[in-house]
């Protein structure tokens, strides 16, 4: 008998069932963490606070409606934000970014690290590239506490790569609280705020629908989905990025998870207290999705899905209609790595070139994305505008076109 068998069964996870306050609360601003951001169509800014387990809604009036949106490029955006917050660049964590629907100003949520504390801030980037720290207390706001907010004690379980012992960084990751994933993505849709994240119990992946203006009503649904690459039914890992689109004639939530299944959930299934099975239709493969941005290119409706470890994926919405819904019965058993012949699976569209790694992205205008991008060569963090048709820069590439001898058109046939 090995000791590991004896001790494994002693692993107990405690959940404290705190009774959540679900009333909207409009008193003094007690924001502790500025995380996920979302705008309503009229310019209400929603800020997810994973420390307080609450969503704050600020009325941010547009300074002006911007018709002629210019691309913005700001080098070393992290350093510039740190400068105005009065700290070194390593003391700023950028949590999310969203574009105001009217003014097209860019809003960035950050944590300002000061010793063992962090303070929330939201920074606005104007069309002229000027940075401004929002004086959040000067805006009128409402607050909605999340029902079933996870306890503040439970942390992740250390896990090493493929049977190896966990590294120091793996252990650091495991020291994070589950509640840090309470609010993963926010999505405003027809007077409601959809919130993906984890909730209190062992079936953690949860979708919430919260009416806005906040009136205390919120519906929470536990979501299960079949993950092709992992060959298992997953109920804990939360939705990372989502969008609502009309698929098969009805409004459906398209959701992307880590490693990276795409699922559809009809909106009418998201009712309070339900445990629902999402319809798995695709799997892009390993990696962690970050942003899912609906946009239009050449009259085609598309989704631009970024990942922390893959090239972005351009997914045509038309391909999601009549998609085959799959379960474990449709595949040979066993996990499927990216090199498996069946991967990527389903109507995943195309993987496209993106120079650098986008940490946060949104649509700036009809023709441009705005992205906070880690430069592959210098490691600098830059705010870039990328054309939707070819979302790239050229400065880290040298191609045939860069040579002085190159003449356009002259290379079309053999000399």
């Amino acid at each position, binding site marked *: 008998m*090995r*000791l590991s*068998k*004896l*001790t494994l*069964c*002693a692993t107990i996870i405690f959940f404290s069932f705190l009774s959540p306050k679900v009333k909207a609360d409009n008193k003094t601003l007690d924001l502790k963490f500025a995380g996920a951001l979302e705008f309503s169509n009229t310019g209400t800014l929603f800020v997810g606070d994973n420390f307080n387990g609450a969503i704050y809604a600020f009325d941010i009036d547009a300074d002006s409606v911007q018709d002629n949106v210019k691309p913005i490029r700001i080098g070393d955006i992290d350093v*510039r934000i*740190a*400068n*105005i*917050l*009065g*700290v*070194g660049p390593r*003391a700023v964590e950028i949590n999310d970014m969203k574009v105001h629907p009217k003014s097209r100003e860019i809003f960035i949520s950050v944590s*300002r690290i*000061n*010793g063992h504390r962090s*303070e929330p*801030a939201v920074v606005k980037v104007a069309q002229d590239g000027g*940075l*401004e*720290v929002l*004086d959040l207390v000067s805006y009128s706001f409402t607050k909605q506490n999340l029902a079933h907010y996870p306890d503040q004690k439970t942390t992740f379980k250390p896990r090493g790569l493929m049977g190896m012992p966990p590294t*120091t960084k793996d252990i650091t990751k495991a020291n994070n609280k589950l509640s840090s994933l309470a609010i993963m993505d926010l999505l405003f849709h027809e007077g409601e705020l959809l919130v993906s994240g984890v909730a209190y119990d062992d079936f953690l992946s949860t979708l919430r629908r919260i009416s806005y203006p906040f009136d205390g009503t919120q519906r929470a649904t536990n979501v299960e989905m079949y993950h092709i690459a992992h060959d298992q039914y997953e109920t804990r890992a939360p939705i990372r990025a989502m969008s609502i689109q009309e698929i098969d004639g009805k409004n459906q939530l398209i959701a992307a998870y880590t490693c990276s299944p795409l699922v559809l959930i009809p909106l009418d299934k998201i009712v309070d207290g339900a445990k629902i099975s999402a319809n798995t239709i695709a799997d892009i493969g390993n990696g962690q999705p970050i942003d899912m941005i609906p946009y239009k290119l050449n009259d085609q409706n598309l989704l631009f899905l970024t990942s922390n470890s893959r090239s972005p994926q351009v997914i045509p919405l038309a391909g999601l209609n009549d998609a085959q819904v799959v379960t474990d019965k449709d595949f040979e058993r066993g996990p499927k790595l990216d090199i498996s012949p069946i991967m990527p699976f389903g109507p995943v569209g195309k993987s496209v070139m993106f120079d650098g790694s986008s940490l946060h992205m949104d649509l700036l205008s009809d023709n441009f994305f705005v992205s906070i991008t880690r430069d592959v060569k210098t490691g600098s963090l830059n705010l870039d505008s990328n054309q939707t048709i070819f979302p790239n820069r050229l400065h880290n590439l040298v191609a045939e076109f860069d040579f002085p001898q190159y003449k356009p058109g002259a290379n079309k046939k053999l000399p």
Partner: protein
Amino acid sequence: MTIRVKPTLLAVTLTSFLLVAIHREGGIGSTRPSDRAVQLGSAALVSEGSLTVPSRVTQAVELNLPERYWDRARIDYSEVLQVYVDNGKDCCTNKAPIVGSYEADNRSVRFIPKFSFVEGQDYVIRVQHRSANQGVFHKLTPFKIQPKTPVVKPEVTGVYPSGNILPENVLRLYIHFSTPMKPHVAFNYIKLVDASGKVDDAAFMKFKQELWSEDRKRLTVLMDPGRIKRNVSTNLGLGPALQKGESYQLVIDGGWPTANGTKPLASFSKSFVVSEALRELPNSGNWIITAPAIRSKDTLTIKFDRPFDHQLLHKDIKVVSIAGEKIKGKSLIGHHETEWHFKPNEAWMDEQIYIVVDGELEDVAGNNFQDLLDHSVTTETNKIPYIFISVDLL
């Protein structure tokens, strides 16, 4: 406390700062005139007000306004006074100042940062000046609020094995410090000295990396195994570092700097006598176990047959219930690592418990239950992952 920098003091500070800047740039000709500490004419200083540099993170920056600003109807204070994140060497071109607000009466202006200052961060105060011969120019005053780190006297807080009699083949020494020490210089300070005062330079195993704990407060020092293992070349050439019957001192010289460069370490020494080498496998059958009474919170005690490795004792012995669950409680190492005490958090509930000892638990000479550190190549090792000792409670 408030540091009020008087104009004369400011002149000294700025002049010396300027000299440093010139020195770094390699000559006055290479400094740019704008946005820089500009050479100060004494005439310019006399008319300028004093600046209050914060010494606490929540303190404002305060500037007494020069007379020409007094009673002026409209002043853009954000033009007059700014604070930047900078070390003052190349401030503040193409850089945005820290966000904050201004409070002013007609004699002084205060800049209150939106977020409090951060200890240890370099800041620069930039004040706009004006003089008849220079026009508008800026003066820079760097400042930093020193972190309030608790003062810990750097000292050796423990050495393990803690006994004064160590076997000839002792392998590992743990030196505990009160604060993290400067790395890569350990063996400039750590010495093995014999009774005649002679230092043995080859006693310890020296790696490219020192074996520090994660908090950098515990250093593992290995006696060179080549000296311990019989009939290997270093053993034949130099003989064992420790000889049975002799006395030695482990000396840690004072002056070793701490990792953060505060006061140096106080010197330390530990005397010990060398006993016979440990050349038998540890035998749990010779351990004396004192069983606690059921339904009590009495301490379970093990008296070992030899001293064990202090660090491994912290993790290699567990107490498990009959159902196989680890019993939670506090363990304590006693009597120079020859005893182990365990006090449960909750009263003992089972009539029988198990002490589970990892087969790789080593004694102070590096011998474990599987093999001796120094064994012949033909000796087979025991494949014992764990040793289960059943204990009947009283």
